[in-house]
């Protein structure tokens, strides 16, 4: 992400349409990156420190499909997402489910431990060398505004996937059950919903969204296992800015972060834009713990 931001910084230091557009594109990707993390946090009340590595895992799977099978990342996306769905579901059901009632510290430490395991496995399998799927689809130029097509396509796909998740949560039996458990677990039990099942499926969906986001990231940015930490950090910011557990929240938080990074990146340099992002996170945390658009969630 840094590379693009620096590219931006070299342009004239002015807030123009290009900067805003860059922010929106970035924001769309961030929304998709964070929405699974937000859902898991909101519904399970678990901060999933594995999230960043799950995204990177998705990116590597897409990369593997691309180099070994020649499969276009946008086509392998459903496959990758399905693999991660199964992975997430099983992980929650058989590992995380045992610590759901433990104090915050325990779930945090456990997901961190799992993250180290996954990170190490990624480094062993794929080495730490940065990879990237280069599609080179050209660029669109309208007036002064320039946008690479691959990036635009990834952003649109990210928004489409996020929208799909929204429809799933709103319009399906499963989605209603997830929202019900999030809003009022005890009342949901009276509807015949088993929260344990919902937790496992929700974690699976969180992993699915991470995998999908990974496929898109692979097209846009160079990635290595180390990118996981950055992506996790972005997810935190998006989540706190937008509020927990809702798709519109993630979207708002993603766009806010994208715009903060691109606008302040131009003004103050990309490094300082990140400080602004985290400072805003801290401020929102202290002043409006429910997020910019959200209402009070857990704790």
């Amino acid at each position, binding site marked *: 992400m840094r590379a693009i931001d620096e590219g931006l910084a070299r342009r004239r230091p002015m807030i123009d349409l290009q900067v805003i557009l860059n922010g929106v594109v970035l924001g769309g990707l961030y929304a998709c990156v964070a929405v699974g993390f937000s859902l898991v946090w909101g519904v399970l009340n678990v901060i999933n420190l594995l999230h960043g590595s799950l995204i990177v895992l998705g990116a590597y799977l897409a990369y593997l499909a691309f180099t070994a099978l020649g499969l276009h990342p946008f086509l392998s996306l459903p496959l990758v997402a399905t693999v991660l769905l199964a992975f997430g579901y099983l992980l929650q059901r058989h590992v995380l489910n045992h610590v759901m009632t433990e104090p915050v510290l325990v779930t945090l430490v456990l997901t961190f431990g799992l993250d180290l395991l996954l990170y190490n496995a990624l480094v062993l399998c794929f080495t730490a060398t940065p990879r990237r799927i280069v599609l080179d689809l050209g660029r669109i130029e309208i007036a002064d505004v320039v946008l690479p097509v691959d990036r635009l396509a990834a952003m649109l796909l990210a928004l489409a996937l996020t929208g799909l998740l929204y429809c799933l949560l709103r319009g399906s039996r499963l989605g209603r059950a997830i929202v*019900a458990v999030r809003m009022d677990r005890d009342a949901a*039990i009276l509807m015949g919903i088993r929260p344990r099942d919902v937790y496992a499926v929700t974690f699976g969906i969180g992993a699915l969204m991470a995998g999908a986001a990974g496929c898109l990231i692979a097209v846009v940015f160079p990635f290595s296992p180390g990118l996981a930490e950055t992506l996790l950090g972005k997810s935190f910011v998006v989540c706190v800015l937008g509020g927990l557990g809702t798709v519109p929240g993630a979207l708002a938080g993603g766009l806010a972060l994208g715009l903060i990074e691109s606008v302040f990146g131009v003004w103050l340099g990309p490094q300082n834009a990140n400080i602004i992002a985290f400072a805003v996170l801290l401020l929102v945390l202290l002043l409006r713990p429910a997020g910019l658009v959200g209402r009070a969630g857990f704790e």
Partner: protein
Amino acid sequence: MAEPLLSIRELQSGYGDVTVLWSIDLDVSEGEIVCIVGSNGAGKTTLLRTISGVVRASAGAITFAGRDVVGFEPDVILGAGIAHVPEGRRLFRGLSVRDNLLLGAHLRHDRAGIARDLDFVFGVFPVLRERKLQDATTLSGGEQQMCALGRGIMSKPKLLMIDELSLGLAPQAVERMSEALREINRAGITLLLVEQDVATAFDLAHHAFVIEQGKVAIHGEARALAADPKIRQAYMGI
């Protein structure tokens, strides 16, 4: 005499080692409206929560439609035909009236049947049809209670248990709700009500149980009990 639909014997229950129900005996016959009254903390809500499986019974028996239902998960009990409308409505925020109603039918898979019951609910409470796309928690108190009732009906229960139907409602709303309950009962659903407004409860019900300190203190035909001074005694202790 026919076997009662719900039969509870020597039920003991509570939270952890806090016993709330000491020994409850209670029968509900099919097609009846039965009410449970009693002062705060007597254990009415705990009784409903124990029947619906949210709270584990520590001793005693609950038989429903000839089947032992003690110790099962809430979804199994709901599937057996006991729905529970909790106190305070507990509608799901952020979901529309229609989605809330559909959540009541979560365990069902018969699309046609669900659609039919949705129509039935909208027939009983026309205002819900008008507001079906509105966030359920933005409805007025009375409308929320209708939605909660409708959500209970959507599971197609044999027995519908309702906790504190009239709490916080205006007298006219209570009147409308009572009418709706009679209609629901006529449609073949047996009702078990927990009520703090004793008059409303006794007007509606065929049978009444007065619970005091986790035990059934008085029970009998609602009409006969309505004039019984013992009721006041059970509440006021004097």
